[in-house]
Protein backbone atom coordinates (compact mmCIF):
# COMPACT_ATOMS: atom_id res chain seq x y z
CA UNK A 1 0.00 0.00 0.00
CA UNK A 2 1.19 3.49 -0.86
CA UNK A 3 0.30 6.79 0.72
CA UNK A 4 0.45 9.47 -1.95
CA UNK A 5 0.34 13.19 -1.27
CA UNK A 6 -0.66 15.34 -4.24
CA UNK A 7 -0.22 19.13 -4.29
CA UNK A 8 -2.05 21.14 -6.94
CA UNK A 9 -1.41 24.87 -7.44
CA UNK A 10 -2.22 27.41 -10.11
CA UNK A 11 0.56 27.79 -12.66
CA UNK A 12 3.08 30.58 -12.12
CA UNK A 13 1.80 32.33 -15.24
CA UNK A 14 -1.80 32.28 -14.01
CA UNK A 15 -2.95 35.04 -11.67
CA UNK A 16 -4.24 33.57 -8.39
CA UNK A 17 -6.97 35.93 -7.10
CA UNK A 18 -7.32 34.04 -3.79
CA UNK A 19 -3.57 34.13 -3.21
CA UNK A 20 -3.49 37.85 -3.98
CA UNK A 21 -6.32 38.53 -1.49
CA UNK A 22 -4.52 36.55 1.22
CA UNK A 23 -1.23 38.33 0.47
CA UNK A 24 -2.95 41.71 0.80
CA UNK A 25 -4.47 40.61 4.07
CA UNK A 26 -1.04 39.55 5.39
CA UNK A 27 0.35 42.93 4.36
CA UNK A 28 -2.47 44.63 6.28
CA UNK A 29 -1.30 42.60 9.29
CA UNK A 30 2.20 44.06 8.75
CA UNK A 31 3.78 40.91 7.36
CA UNK A 32 5.34 43.00 4.64
CA UNK A 33 8.05 40.44 3.98
CA UNK A 34 5.50 38.22 2.20
CA UNK A 35 6.10 38.73 -1.50
CA UNK A 36 3.73 36.11 -2.91
CA UNK A 37 0.97 33.70 -1.83
CA UNK A 38 -0.32 30.86 -3.97
CA UNK A 39 -3.33 28.87 -2.84
CA UNK A 40 -3.61 25.26 -3.84
CA UNK A 41 -5.09 21.91 -2.99
CA UNK A 42 -3.67 19.03 -1.03
CA UNK A 43 -4.94 15.50 -1.58
CA UNK A 44 -4.00 12.28 0.16
CA UNK A 45 -4.51 9.03 -1.67
CA UNK A 46 -4.14 5.48 -0.41
CA UNK A 47 -3.23 3.28 -3.33
CA UNK A 48 -3.07 -0.51 -3.26
CA UNK A 49 -0.07 -2.13 -4.89
CA UNK A 50 -0.81 -3.39 -8.38
CA UNK A 51 1.20 -4.60 -11.33
CA UNK A 52 1.35 -1.03 -12.64
CA UNK A 53 4.08 1.36 -11.58
CA UNK A 54 2.59 3.58 -8.90
CA UNK A 55 4.30 6.74 -10.14
CA UNK A 56 2.95 6.17 -13.62
CA UNK A 57 -0.55 5.69 -12.22
CA UNK A 58 -0.33 8.88 -10.09
CA UNK A 59 0.88 10.97 -13.05
CA UNK A 60 -1.98 9.63 -15.15
CA UNK A 61 -4.55 10.47 -12.46
CA UNK A 62 -3.12 13.96 -12.01
CA UNK A 63 -3.18 14.68 -15.74
CA UNK A 64 -6.67 13.30 -16.25
CA UNK A 65 -8.54 14.46 -13.15
CA UNK A 66 -6.72 15.74 -10.09
CA UNK A 67 -5.22 18.78 -11.82
CA UNK A 68 -6.36 20.83 -14.79
CA UNK A 69 -3.03 21.21 -16.56
CA UNK A 70 -4.30 24.18 -18.57
CA UNK A 71 -4.03 26.34 -15.44
CA UNK A 72 -2.59 24.10 -12.72
CA UNK A 73 0.72 22.46 -11.84
CA UNK A 74 0.98 19.41 -9.65
CA UNK A 75 3.62 17.59 -7.69
CA UNK A 76 3.40 14.51 -5.50
CA UNK A 77 5.16 12.46 -2.88
CA UNK A 78 4.88 8.70 -2.69
CA UNK A 79 5.43 6.90 0.60
CA UNK A 80 5.24 3.20 1.10
CA UNK A 81 2.83 2.65 3.99
CA UNK A 82 3.91 0.12 6.59
CA UNK A 83 1.33 -2.61 7.13
CA UNK A 84 -0.48 -2.26 10.45
Amino acid at each position, binding site marked *: MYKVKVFVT*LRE*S*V*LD*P*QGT*AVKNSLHTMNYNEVSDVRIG*KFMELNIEKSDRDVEEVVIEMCER*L*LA*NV*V*IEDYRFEIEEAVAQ
Partner: protein
Amino acid sequence: MRFAVIVFPGSNCDVDMYHAVKDELGADVEYVWHDAESLDEFDGILLPGGFSYGDYLRSGAIARFSNVMKEVVKAAEAGKPVLGVCNGFQILLEAGLLPGAMRRNESLKFICRPVELKVENNETMFSSAYEKDEVITIPIAHGEGNYYCDEETLAKLKDNNQIVFTYNGSNPNGSLENIAGIINEKGNVLGMMPHPERAVDELLGGADGLKLFQSIVKQWREAHVVKA
Protein backbone atom coordinates in the same frame (compact mmCIF):
# COMPACT_ATOMS: atom_id res chain seq x y z
CA MET B 1 -35.86 19.35 -33.86
CA ARG B 2 -35.44 17.58 -30.55
CA PHE B 3 -33.33 18.91 -27.70
CA ALA B 4 -31.85 17.13 -24.69
CA VAL B 5 -31.24 18.99 -21.44
CA ILE B 6 -28.57 17.02 -19.61
CA VAL B 7 -29.19 16.82 -15.87
CA PHE B 8 -26.27 16.19 -13.54
CA PRO B 9 -26.58 15.85 -9.78
CA GLY B 10 -26.38 19.51 -8.76
CA SER B 11 -27.61 21.06 -12.01
CA ASN B 12 -30.00 23.87 -11.14
CA CYS B 13 -30.71 25.70 -14.40
CA ASP B 14 -32.10 22.62 -16.11
CA VAL B 15 -35.71 23.69 -15.53
CA ASP B 16 -35.05 27.18 -16.94
CA MET B 17 -33.41 25.62 -19.98
CA TYR B 18 -36.31 23.23 -20.48
CA HIS B 19 -38.82 26.06 -20.11
CA ALA B 20 -36.95 28.27 -22.61
CA VAL B 21 -36.92 25.56 -25.25
CA LYS B 22 -40.37 24.12 -24.71
CA ASP B 23 -42.50 27.17 -23.87
CA GLU B 24 -40.68 30.10 -25.43
CA LEU B 25 -38.97 28.49 -28.42
CA GLY B 26 -41.68 25.88 -28.94
CA ALA B 27 -39.41 22.94 -29.71
CA ASP B 28 -39.33 19.36 -28.45
CA VAL B 29 -37.18 18.88 -25.38
CA GLU B 30 -36.50 16.19 -22.81
CA TYR B 31 -34.49 15.91 -19.63
CA VAL B 32 -31.68 13.35 -19.88
CA TRP B 33 -30.03 12.02 -16.73
CA HIS B 34 -26.23 12.01 -16.47
CA ASP B 35 -25.94 8.24 -16.71
CA ALA B 36 -27.84 7.96 -20.02
CA GLU B 37 -26.36 5.54 -22.54
CA SER B 38 -27.37 7.29 -25.73
CA LEU B 39 -28.21 10.69 -27.17
CA ASP B 40 -28.85 9.34 -30.66
CA GLU B 41 -32.49 10.42 -30.69
CA PHE B 42 -31.62 14.08 -30.05
CA ASP B 43 -30.63 16.78 -32.53
CA GLY B 44 -29.32 19.35 -30.07
CA ILE B 45 -27.62 18.95 -26.67
CA LEU B 46 -27.95 21.53 -23.88
CA LEU B 47 -25.73 21.47 -20.80
CA PRO B 48 -27.35 23.66 -18.17
CA GLY B 49 -25.84 25.69 -15.35
CA GLY B 50 -25.63 24.78 -11.71
CA PHE B 51 -23.13 23.09 -9.45
CA SER B 52 -22.72 19.61 -10.86
CA TYR B 53 -21.29 17.30 -8.21
CA GLY B 54 -21.11 20.27 -5.85
CA ASP B 55 -18.27 21.79 -7.88
CA TYR B 56 -16.00 19.34 -6.02
CA LEU B 57 -12.34 19.45 -7.07
CA ARG B 58 -13.03 21.98 -9.86
CA SER B 59 -16.22 23.15 -11.54
CA GLY B 60 -17.16 20.53 -14.11
CA ALA B 61 -14.23 18.22 -13.28
CA ILE B 62 -16.35 15.33 -12.00
CA ALA B 63 -19.28 15.78 -14.40
CA ARG B 64 -16.88 15.50 -17.30
CA PHE B 65 -16.42 11.79 -16.51
CA SER B 66 -20.11 10.95 -16.19
CA ASN B 67 -21.51 8.38 -18.55
CA VAL B 68 -23.47 10.76 -20.74
CA MET B 69 -20.38 12.83 -21.56
CA LYS B 70 -19.12 10.11 -23.90
CA GLU B 71 -22.35 10.60 -25.80
CA VAL B 72 -21.97 14.38 -25.72
CA VAL B 73 -18.52 13.98 -27.29
CA LYS B 74 -20.06 11.70 -29.90
CA ALA B 75 -22.80 14.24 -30.65
CA ALA B 76 -20.20 16.99 -30.95
CA GLU B 77 -18.15 14.88 -33.35
CA ALA B 78 -21.28 14.21 -35.39
CA GLY B 79 -21.73 17.97 -35.80
CA LYS B 80 -24.84 18.32 -33.64
CA PRO B 81 -25.21 21.64 -31.85
CA VAL B 82 -23.92 21.41 -28.26
CA LEU B 83 -24.53 24.39 -25.98
CA GLY B 84 -22.99 24.66 -22.52
CA VAL B 85 -24.15 27.49 -20.28
CA CYS B 86 -22.28 28.49 -17.11
CA ASN B 87 -21.50 25.16 -15.39
CA GLY B 88 -22.23 23.57 -18.78
CA PHE B 89 -19.42 25.71 -20.25
CA GLN B 90 -17.12 24.66 -17.42
CA ILE B 91 -17.90 20.99 -18.16
CA LEU B 92 -17.16 21.49 -21.89
CA LEU B 93 -13.78 23.02 -20.95
CA GLU B 94 -12.94 20.16 -18.58
CA ALA B 95 -13.98 17.67 -21.25
CA GLY B 96 -11.65 19.30 -23.75
CA LEU B 97 -14.48 20.03 -26.18
CA LEU B 98 -13.51 23.70 -25.86
CA PRO B 99 -10.02 25.10 -25.13
CA GLY B 100 -9.01 26.92 -21.94
CA ALA B 101 -10.07 26.83 -18.30
CA MET B 102 -11.98 28.85 -15.71
CA ARG B 103 -10.48 30.65 -12.73
CA ARG B 104 -12.23 32.21 -9.75
CA ASN B 105 -13.71 35.63 -10.53
CA GLU B 106 -11.10 38.33 -10.07
CA SER B 107 -13.21 39.90 -7.29
CA LEU B 108 -13.59 36.47 -5.60
CA LYS B 109 -17.30 37.24 -5.46
CA PHE B 110 -20.20 35.30 -6.88
CA ILE B 111 -21.78 37.72 -9.34
CA CYS B 112 -25.46 37.53 -10.22
CA ARG B 113 -26.82 40.33 -12.40
CA PRO B 114 -27.70 41.21 -15.99
CA VAL B 115 -24.69 42.20 -18.13
CA GLU B 116 -24.26 43.62 -21.60
CA LEU B 117 -22.73 41.33 -24.19
CA LYS B 118 -21.44 42.15 -27.62
CA VAL B 119 -22.06 39.69 -30.43
CA GLU B 120 -18.58 39.38 -31.93
CA ASN B 121 -19.43 36.67 -34.41
CA ASN B 122 -22.92 36.28 -35.83
CA GLU B 123 -21.91 33.71 -38.40
CA THR B 124 -22.40 30.69 -36.14
CA MET B 125 -25.33 28.31 -35.77
CA PHE B 126 -25.92 29.85 -32.32
CA SER B 127 -25.76 33.54 -33.18
CA SER B 128 -27.06 34.00 -36.73
CA ALA B 129 -30.28 35.71 -35.56
CA TYR B 130 -28.23 38.53 -34.01
CA GLU B 131 -26.58 41.42 -35.82
CA LYS B 132 -22.79 41.61 -35.79
CA ASP B 133 -21.69 43.85 -32.88
CA GLU B 134 -25.25 43.86 -31.53
CA VAL B 135 -25.31 44.62 -27.80
CA ILE B 136 -27.63 42.35 -25.84
CA THR B 137 -28.45 42.01 -22.15
CA ILE B 138 -28.19 38.56 -20.57
CA PRO B 139 -27.85 37.65 -16.88
CA ILE B 140 -24.74 36.08 -15.41
CA ALA B 141 -24.58 34.08 -12.17
CA HIS B 142 -21.20 32.58 -11.39
CA GLY B 143 -18.21 32.53 -9.07
CA GLU B 144 -15.82 31.00 -11.58
CA GLY B 145 -16.21 32.64 -14.95
CA ASN B 146 -12.78 34.14 -15.30
CA TYR B 147 -11.84 32.55 -18.62
CA TYR B 148 -8.19 31.76 -19.25
CA CYS B 149 -6.17 30.22 -22.05
CA ASP B 150 -2.54 30.50 -23.12
CA GLU B 151 -1.41 33.00 -25.75
CA GLU B 152 -1.17 30.43 -28.50
CA THR B 153 -4.76 29.29 -27.90
CA LEU B 154 -5.97 32.89 -27.74
CA ALA B 155 -4.33 33.66 -31.09
CA LYS B 156 -6.08 30.63 -32.56
CA LEU B 157 -9.45 31.68 -31.10
CA LYS B 158 -9.03 35.08 -32.72
CA ASP B 159 -7.77 33.78 -36.07
CA ASN B 160 -10.70 31.38 -36.39
CA ASN B 161 -13.25 33.91 -35.15
CA GLN B 162 -14.14 31.58 -32.25
CA ILE B 163 -14.93 34.35 -29.76
CA VAL B 164 -18.70 34.67 -30.13
CA PHE B 165 -19.66 36.87 -27.15
CA THR B 166 -17.64 39.39 -25.14
CA TYR B 167 -18.63 41.48 -22.13
CA ASN B 168 -19.50 44.97 -23.32
CA GLY B 169 -18.25 47.90 -21.27
CA SER B 170 -17.07 46.54 -17.94
CA ASN B 171 -15.75 43.02 -17.49
CA PRO B 172 -17.50 41.39 -14.51
CA ASN B 173 -15.08 38.56 -13.78
CA GLY B 174 -11.65 39.40 -15.19
CA SER B 175 -11.86 37.00 -18.14
CA LEU B 176 -9.18 37.16 -20.79
CA GLU B 177 -10.04 39.63 -23.58
CA ASN B 178 -13.51 40.10 -22.03
CA ILE B 179 -14.46 36.65 -23.29
CA ALA B 180 -18.00 35.58 -22.36
CA GLY B 181 -18.53 32.78 -24.88
CA ILE B 182 -16.46 30.76 -27.35
CA ILE B 183 -17.16 28.19 -30.03
CA ASN B 184 -15.08 25.21 -31.17
CA GLU B 185 -13.22 25.26 -34.47
CA LYS B 186 -15.87 23.20 -36.21
CA GLY B 187 -18.55 25.67 -35.10
CA ASN B 188 -21.01 23.35 -33.37
CA VAL B 189 -19.99 23.53 -29.69
CA LEU B 190 -20.64 26.81 -27.87
CA GLY B 191 -19.78 27.53 -24.26
CA MET B 192 -20.86 30.74 -22.54
CA MET B 193 -21.02 31.97 -18.96
CA PRO B 194 -24.12 34.20 -19.37
CA HIS B 195 -27.52 32.52 -19.21
CA PRO B 196 -29.56 33.00 -22.43
CA GLU B 197 -32.23 30.67 -21.03
CA ARG B 198 -32.93 33.24 -18.31
CA ALA B 199 -33.60 35.95 -20.88
CA VAL B 200 -36.42 34.59 -23.00
CA ASP B 201 -39.40 36.58 -21.79
CA GLU B 202 -39.92 40.37 -21.62
CA LEU B 203 -42.10 39.83 -18.58
CA LEU B 204 -39.06 38.50 -16.71
CA GLY B 205 -36.72 41.32 -17.65
CA GLY B 206 -35.72 40.70 -21.25
CA ALA B 207 -35.81 38.30 -24.16
CA ASP B 208 -32.39 38.82 -25.74
CA GLY B 209 -31.47 35.18 -25.16
CA LEU B 210 -34.26 33.79 -27.29
CA LYS B 211 -32.51 34.58 -30.58
CA LEU B 212 -29.73 32.20 -29.60
CA PHE B 213 -32.15 29.28 -29.47
CA GLN B 214 -33.92 30.51 -32.61
CA SER B 215 -30.58 30.55 -34.42
CA ILE B 216 -30.02 26.87 -33.59
CA VAL B 217 -33.46 25.85 -34.87
CA LYS B 218 -33.13 27.97 -38.01
CA GLN B 219 -29.81 26.37 -38.90
CA TRP B 220 -31.17 22.89 -38.23
CA ARG B 221 -34.23 23.47 -40.38
CA GLU B 222 -32.14 24.76 -43.26
CA ALA B 223 -29.95 21.66 -43.04
CA HIS B 224 -32.61 19.02 -42.40
CA VAL B 225 -36.03 19.99 -43.62
CA VAL B 226 -36.51 18.76 -47.17
CA LYS B 227 -37.58 21.50 -49.48
CA ALA B 228 -40.81 20.75 -51.30
